[in-house]
């Protein structure tokens, strides 16, 4: 009964055929149609700009004080596109294939092929907007490589690709605001979806400065609210990243796709103590030159540079000689956990491994010495020259590491550990990015669409901009073409009344509990349950326990939290209470999803389902489907969308 609406026909013709036959809305009618966009990160800002340019009346919302501060701003490494500027054999097909394989065969062929098709136009659009991508001396665009691929297709702007792309989209959006096509509501948070006759027709938003609730009507509603990695408390996401917008939609009928699919990134700065509020990513690019190791001895006390070579375990090189330190993220993360669980971890917490640049510094130093014809040079000079090369390539990351840890990574190996980074799961959407609620769409990280069970590096930025610039402008028209006769529904309509009343009661409830525990402490406890039992490795018993513990936590939350301040004021504590309440419910669903998926695939590793060598054991015969969860009274019901592979033949991933 779940219809993904993938167009018929051959894979490479699906999108162009769709565009050729999709319904259109004429300019005069566009002016009468209102579209609400919740979230103005890469997905939302690009959608708002593109739809504003087309002449729709757009209202866009974000909780930060400016759209330019969305979490997308933090992306470091780059954005993929099948340009084949390097002449190294790249193509739309290869980008499509790498993404399907990287996702461990849990995404849709039709969607992923479209993503690869439009990738090239994204780069063109961004260049035209003035995004200052890295360039070669000839003036042309530069590329680098990322994990899971054999071609160089990643475009970048130093370690600030996200900032530059978002500023591009933000400027396009601000231009539409100036032209009056888009009305922007900053410091606003969507707290409820409004439906009339089953269709999405608006939202209830809170003005975070005054605390007032507002009603907004739209002929369609687009959710672009980002990922929910903060359900784990500690993650690389921004502090405000949350699930509230999609969770409200889910509770109003939008199915949730693959909620348990979470990406744990292998190279992040480890936790230092209870005070830790977030984790910082060290870009994947560092694994190009760094070597990862732990001591061979348990209870090693020596400083890393005092440990001789033969007493070090370069465990990735040992286990995966073919890919070595460049295995995909899920594999690298699990291998680090395996070592630390056995007690080989380093640092005070023993929850870290070394990422060592000594060998790279020496290698680069020697290359420099020979380039400059220096003959026989002493080790010190080699090290000095090597450090210069490393600084040029990775300087900003090394600086960031030093600022946070106070240690100099040119001298002491970095300590790293996996951290929650990205959520592949999200609202279930069809080919048109529409959820199971008519007129409600989900774009960017908050949908489940393109990355299957594991996302490849540099593909999230691509997906966000593909959805916003090049997909939604076509697909939303297909729906709105039939809505042109619908006059604006006044916000005095009972549906708005009821939705606002529900939001108000909930806020009043938070304020009235007046218990003893802070919302922050509840969030920490939820995060610990999720990380221990629904994190890098999961098993049935742990997941069952987690579900019980989360239910208990939920009871405590609703009876014992303490929220200070008043309702009609700038009150971040109160806003946080709402977000954590939603995270708690989502946590339970994630555990249920992880429990039902009795296989290991991509980032989802069930300990009961591994090969003799400890690798993921995917069970295509039973689990080649998208798990789409429907919220029903008292719990959830699972629906399955079978995945059909017409072009790619699923096989076991091997990196040995």
């Amino acid at each position, binding site marked *: 009964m779940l219809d993904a609406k993938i167009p018929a026909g051959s894979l490479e013709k699906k999108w162009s055929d769709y565009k050729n036959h999709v319904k259109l809305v004429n300019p005069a009618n566009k002016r009468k149609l209102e579209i609400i966009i919740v979230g103005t990160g890469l997905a939302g800002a690009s959608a708002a700009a593109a739809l504003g340019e087309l002449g729709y009346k757009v209202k866009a919302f974000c909780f930060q004080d400016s759209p330019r501060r969305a979490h997308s701003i933090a992306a470091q490494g780059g954005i993929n596109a099948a340009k084949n500027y390097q002449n190294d054999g790249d193509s739309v097909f290869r980008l499509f294939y790498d993404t399907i394989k990287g996702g461990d065969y849990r995404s849709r062929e039709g969607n992923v092929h479209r993503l690869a098709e439009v990738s090239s136009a994204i780069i063109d659009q961004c260049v035209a907007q003035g995004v200052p991508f890295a360039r070669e001396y000839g*003036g042309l665009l530069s590329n680098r490589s990322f994990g899971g691929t054999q071609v160089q297709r990643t475009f970048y702007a130093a370690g600030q690709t996200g*900032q530059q792309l978002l500023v591009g989209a933000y*400027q396009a959006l601000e231009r539409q605001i100036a032209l009056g096509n888009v009305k922007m509501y900053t410091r606003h948070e969507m707290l409820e979806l409004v439906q009339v006759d089953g269709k999405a027709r608006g939202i209830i938003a809170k003005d975070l400065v005054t605390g007032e609730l507002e009603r907004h009507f739209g002929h369609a509603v687009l959710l672009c609210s980002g990922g929910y990695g903060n359900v784990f408390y500690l993650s690389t996401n921004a502090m405000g990243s949350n699930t509230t917008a999609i969770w409200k939609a889910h509770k109003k009928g939008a199915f949730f796709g693959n909620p348990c699919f979470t990406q744990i990134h292998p190279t992040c700065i480890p936790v230092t103590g209870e005070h830790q509020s977030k984790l910082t990513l060290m870009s994947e690019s560092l694994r190009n030159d760094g070597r990862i190791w732990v001591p061979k001895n348990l209870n090693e006390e020596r400083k890393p540079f005092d440990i001789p070579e033969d007493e070090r375990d370069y465990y990735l090189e040992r286990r995966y000689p073919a890919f070595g330190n460049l295995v995909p993220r899920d594999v690298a993360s699990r291998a680090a956990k395996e070592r630390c669980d056995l007690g080989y971890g380093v640092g005070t917490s023993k929850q870290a491994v070394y990422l060592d640049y000594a060998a790279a510094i020496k290698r680069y130093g020697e290359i420099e010495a020979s380039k400059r014809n220096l003959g026989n040079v002493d080790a010190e000079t080699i090290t000095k020259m090597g450090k210069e090369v490393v600084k040029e390539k990775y300087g900003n990351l090394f600086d960031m590491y030093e600022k946070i840890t*106070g240690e100099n990574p040119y001298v002491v190996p970095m300590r790293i550990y996996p951290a929650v980074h990205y959520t592949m799961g999200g609202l279930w959407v069809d080919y048109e990015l529409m959820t199971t609620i008519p007129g409600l769409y989900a774009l960017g990280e908050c949908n489940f669409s393109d990355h299957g069970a594991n996302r490849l590096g540099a593909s999230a930025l691509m997906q966000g901009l593909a959805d916003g610039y090049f997909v939604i402008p076509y697909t939303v028209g297909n729906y709105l073409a039939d809505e042109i006769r619908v006059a604006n529904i006044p916000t005095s309509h009972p549906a708005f009344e009821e939705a606002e009343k529900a939001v108000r009661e909930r806020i009043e409830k938070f304020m009235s509990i007046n218990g003893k525990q802070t919302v922050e402490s509840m969030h920490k406890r939820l995060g610990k349950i999720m990380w221990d039992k629904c994190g890098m490795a999961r098993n049935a018993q742990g997941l069952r326990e987690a579900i019980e513990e989360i239910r208990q936590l939920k009871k405590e939350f609703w009876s014992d939290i303490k929220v200070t301040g008043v309702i009609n004021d700038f009150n971040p504590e109160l806003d946080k209470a709402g977000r954590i309440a939603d995270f708690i419910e989502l946590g339970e669903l994630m555990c249920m999803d992880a429990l039902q998926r009795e296989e290991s695939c991509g980032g989802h590793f069930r300990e009961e389902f591994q090969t003799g060598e400890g690798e993921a054991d995917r069970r295509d015969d039973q689990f080649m489907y998208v798990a789409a969860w429907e919220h029903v009274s008292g719990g959830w019901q699972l629906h399955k969308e079978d995945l059909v592979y017409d072009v790619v033949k699923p096989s076991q991933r091997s990196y040995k």
Partner: protein
Amino acid sequence: MDHYEMKLTLKVWRQANNKSKGRFETFQVDGISSEMSFLEMIDILNERLVVEGQDPIAFDHDCREGICGSCAMHINGRPHGPWHATTTCQLHMRAFKDGDTIVVEPWRANGFPIIKDLVTDRSAFDRIIQAGGFISVNTGNAVDGNALPINKDNADASFAAAACISCGACVAACKNASASLFLSAKISHLGLLPQGQPERHKRVISMVAQMDKEGFGSCTFTGACEAVCPKEIAITNISRMHKDYLAAGLSADN
């Protein structure tokens, strides 16, 4: 790195809203580890305040990685505190020692009215961008990305200016509360690229007009902005902006 614990005195600006009068409130905090970030230290204080039933200190923050530009605290008389090229969120407590007194204030400028405590309204920056901080190209109109080679030096200089995170530290540091460094970073980012040429003159005229309208002061080249900028945006951008402004005034086609 050796860690240590500290006991600190914090003097924090508290102000209920834009209309009320503000004042400093003093707090003692102890058990602060040198490993914590500055904001994590505030988190600990806020947790305590909530438990005690008091209103926690309001402050803007999001990425905590030095890139979103949300965090904005004036610490011991300097925007973003004592470390060079560092945002408030990247400042760590090993910058301080046991027994220190730390004074924390919001950005102070006419263009940035206070919302609450350390939170200010920086929407003026968005409106300055609306006045012309963009290239007018609709989606789908672009030519191939490599159809337009760009000299690497210009591309790199444009990127260096585009590194601005719109935090407003430049305004907070300036005795005139001028937004010139912020604005000039945008003028350079777009003006150094061939794509930015068609609107170059119009852009500078309307963005400067908007800056004036928002109540920011004028630039007297003290260099205070450059010194505190977490992204090291160079003051030479302001000279470039002034040149563009003059040229725009002289040319007929603005």
